[in-house]
């Protein structure tokens, strides 16, 4: 009950109606809400672009995902008799990220189910924000992938022609669905991949700008990187995790992903399969990533290595989702191993 005591002390009001609390009396203007809503804002440009790439369907599926996450958060907190904190933006962010990692052509029922699993089981049953040890959005995706494997691996939409953003409404998804680049590469080989998506500069260009099949978060690498750099500039995330994740994916893909050693395509490896979304927005989630700089780099490199391992040897074309989920619970362990350096140990050796 110390927690309650602390909050009461914080707002205890003296006889003169002045507030009395323990120092510091000055606090920075940053807040959890500000951080969460800023990240949400950084995800808006790729979302808007996705409407022009895949059609209005992406907006619809994102709205369903966000609304169900917020509703599930409110209901969970009510049911668990905790203060309702939907205004802090964390459920909105989870909803957006979840919509970004599922195929845009799936039935709206899927994100609703995923929201229940991610927010109620994955977050609030474990203690709420700060105590969940898996990234809720990725947990939702993993749950869907296990429960609806066909929809989750086939409901991809090819980019629309011109501005025909409403063209998929009313049509059966099966009629238009296509395969993602990594799936083509994995299942049909490099030749089919080159035939389908081209090669060289035009390939990188279309992947970087977002015109190729995939989920929302896999499309516009350019806008996602832009948002990520803004978050680093604001000090909300540090470079350690994104750089180590992407760097290790690039290096390991270059070594192992080609026909021979050292002949893989590192740029393609980074630009495909949601690596950028994962590196900047998922792996950097405060709660489920380490806090110390050294552990952050180890955490990032491990995620990159597991991603490449799953992509090359595993059963899925894409690996970063599971790589992050596998490393999430290890982050506290890493923080336990790599403690911050103390100012100065006691004289006569550290205790």
């Amino acid at each position, binding site marked *: 009950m110390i927690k309650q005591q602390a909050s009461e002390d914080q707002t205890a009001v003296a006889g003169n109606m*002045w507030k009395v609390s323990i120092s*510091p009396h000055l606090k920075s203007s940053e807040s959890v809400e500000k951080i969460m809503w800023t990240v949400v804002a950084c995800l808006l440009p790729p979302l808007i672009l996705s409407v022009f790439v895949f059609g209005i369907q992406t907006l619809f599926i994102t709205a369903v995902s966000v609304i169900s996450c917020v509703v599930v958060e409110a209901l969970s907190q009510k049911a668990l008799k905790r203060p309702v904190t939907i205004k802090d933006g964390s459920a909105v962010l989870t909803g957006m990220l979840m919509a970004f990692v599922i195929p845009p052509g799936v039935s709206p029922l899927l994100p609703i189910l995923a929201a229940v699993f991610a927010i109620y089981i994955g977050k609030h049953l474990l203690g709420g924000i700060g*105590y969940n040890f898996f990234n809720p959005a990725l947990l939702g995706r993993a749950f869907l992938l296990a429960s609806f494997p066909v929809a989750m691996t086939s409901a991809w939409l090819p980019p629309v022609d011109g501005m025909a953003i409403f063209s998929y409404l009313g049509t059966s998804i099966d009629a238009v669905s296509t395969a993602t680049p990594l799936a083509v590469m994995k299942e049909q080989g490099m030749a089919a991949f080159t035939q389908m998506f081209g090669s060289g500069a035009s390939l990188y260009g279309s992947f970087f700008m977002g015109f190729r099949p995939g989920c929302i978060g896999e499309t516009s690498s350019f806008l996602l990187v832009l948002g990520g750099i803004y978050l680093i500039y604001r000090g909300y995330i540090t470079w350690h995790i994104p750089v180590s994740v992407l760097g290790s994916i690039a290096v390991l893909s270059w070594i192992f992903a080609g026909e021979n050693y050292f002949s893989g395509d590192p740029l393609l490896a980074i630009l495909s399969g949601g690596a950028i979304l994962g590196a900047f927005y998922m792996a950097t989630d*405060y709660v489920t990533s*380490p806090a110390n700089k050294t552990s952050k780099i180890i955490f990032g490199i491990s995620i990159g290595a597991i991603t490449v391992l799953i992509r090359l040897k595993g059963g899925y074309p894409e690996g970063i989702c599971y790589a992050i989920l596998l490393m999430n619970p290890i982050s506290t362990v890493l923080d336990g191993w790599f403690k911050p350096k103390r100012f100065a*140990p*006691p004289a006569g050796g550290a205790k």
Partner: protein
Amino acid sequence: MKPLLTFTKGGVHPPEFKAQTAGLGIEVMPVPQELQLILGQHIGAPCTPTVGKRDEVKEGGIIGEVTKGLGVPLHSPVDGKIKDIGTSTHPLRMSVPSITISVAEDASAPVYEKQDWHNIDKAELLKKVHAAGVIGVGGAGFPTHVKLNPPSSSPVDTLLLNGAECEPYITADHRQMLENTEDIIEGAKIILKILGISKCYIGIESNKPDAIEKMSAAAQAGSGNGYTIEVQPLQVKYPQGSEKQLIEAITGRKVPAMALPSAVGVVVQNVATAKAVYDAAVFGKPLYEKVVTIAGKGIKRPANLLVKVGTRIGDIVDYLGGLQPGLTKVIMGGPMMGFAISSLEVPVTKTTSALLFLTEDEVDTRPHSQCIRCGWCLDACPMGLEPKEIGIFVEAGKAEDTAPFGVFDCFECGSCAYVCPAKRPLVQFIRMAKMKAKRP
């Protein structure tokens, strides 16, 4: 200008808010009708009263003495009569023994004769510092004569004068460096003589360029005859004025955990303490006056006041024209480490450096939420601790298991709680941890 130095680990940049009072010269506040002197002004044993009720006292006369243990005598700041020996409200210890003095109406200021301190030997100077009741007036309140007599096992080679004044709002030291410049430099030389060393650095943050300039000139003029005094400009970063951080910034030496600065051959004194040493050694004048910054939007007229120790805050408020609507918090000390008080009955002590009257928009009263483990507190902590873990442990009722996180290294600067986006009362958690955890 010399390159700006600073400490290496952690630290934060809160807004400075110093403009309100930085330009206001030190103003002498008229003596109120009554003073209330807390008997425990310093770290160590509180004084025992040497006067009785209704006794007449003279300005500068001893009214309390430490009979056993660490401490310094307490002097009457005025001519007057002992009204009561009772208790007084104290921001931390609720109620403490104190002496109340009714100020005489026909008081005459005593004349302190100037002496040349060069002709007084070390031991005699040290005695004068003790007799004058000088303590570290920067905040800690450690008896100065003890600090100036370090154990022979740890020889001292450097004196640091602390003019960093890194807390927002406060400008009392800044004003004293501008207005009592020569006295502070002389005080530094007296301290150097007592310590038997020659080197003194004065650390001043670069947001006080006028003080750096004036003090540098005086330091240069005062150097020679075996004394080297040098002003070292510092980057603006909180908590630069913390003893260990200041020592690292200027000398590069790191004071080990649980150790005193003398362990690395350094003695640190506040610039205002140097002025008090000067008054004690040259005039034999005891320490019973204090320069206090009064600031914030909640007070009618902000000021830097020279007040008698024992002046009640209420009297200061009346003198400055009263309170302003919207006052939310009254703080004794700076906004980062000061104590919020609930009554204007609290008297000024020798260690009071500021009284802040803050309105709703100047303080943060947002409720705290769960830790999101962003790790910002790890980056902010100047001691390399893990405040977030300590907070989580304390919340989970495991306060006694927090010693491995280094709770006892924490000097409660509040940098962690300042940056915390979840507004967690981390200093409060750490204080709880300190109460329960076992000291290594």
